[in-house]
């Protein structure tokens, strides 16, 4: 059975995380070989996932850690 694009999109997230079973993965891989649109959708989704994981995207506010540990020190002195 040949799967369609919509079916591939439903599995994209699990596919990226390596969580689809071997049979579905093989079907998707076969589909990707000939479908440029699904390949682009998959590549772009994976690209977004990689970019948001970079530590530069979300950084703790300057001095956050110092203020936290200073407050903890006050608490630790009390108890």
């Amino acid at each position, binding site marked *: 059975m040949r799967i369609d694009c919509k079916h591939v999109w439903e599995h994209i997230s699990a596919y*990226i995380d390596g969580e689809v079973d071997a049979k579905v993965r093989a079907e998707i891989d076969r589909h990707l070989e000939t479908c440029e649109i699904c390949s682009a959708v998959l590549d772009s989704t994976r690209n977004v996932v990689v970019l948001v994981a970079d530590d530069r995207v979300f950084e703790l506010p300057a001095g956050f850690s110092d203020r936290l540990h200073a407050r903890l020190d006050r608490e630790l002195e009390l108890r």
Partner: protein
Amino acid sequence: MTAHNPEFETECIRRILSGEKQLFHTLIRPCERPVYFLLLSLLHNEAEAEDAAQETAIKVYRNLHLFRGDSQFRTWVLSIARNEGLGRLRKVETRREDSLEGLAEDQSGDFTPAILASWREVPVEALERKELGALLRTAIEDLPVIYRNVVLLRDIEEMDVRETAAALGITEGAVKVRLHRARAMLQRELAPKLKGFAPKRARLFGWGA
């Protein structure tokens, strides 16, 4: 040995409870980032998220004797952070956006990806350009809170499905569904805008030249 090592954590907790209080700094340090960003996701306000993160750390310290070790330490800390965040949200009834109802219920929406004919990869080096980081942050901040929380823990803090589910008090199935939808929404929002950050031509000569 890192503080993510359960044996180290158990030993650390034992020593803190027997009086080596200063070790608590070491124990809590690896949790700082996920705690802050989970609270920021819930509260949408940097100052309040920071205050709530400090409050969380103090509650963790005061309740340390209650940690039983049946979950990872970080998961336990994140569930305390989540309760702290939800408690604060409940106090602010006027916050219509991201209402508490939204936390319990999956929202319907369009999870169809942006259709593209081709894709040129945007390398992480492109994050040297501040506007790319800003673009990604805005897209994540604009997600409904139930999706934002999952992206934050799974994709940004890189926690596994099980730990994310435990920290958010939802099933592993819900984590997967929400992550899938969130990624689809992010791809749809970001793919057209990211194109400008891809290397212009031959990568051999460096990107963005």
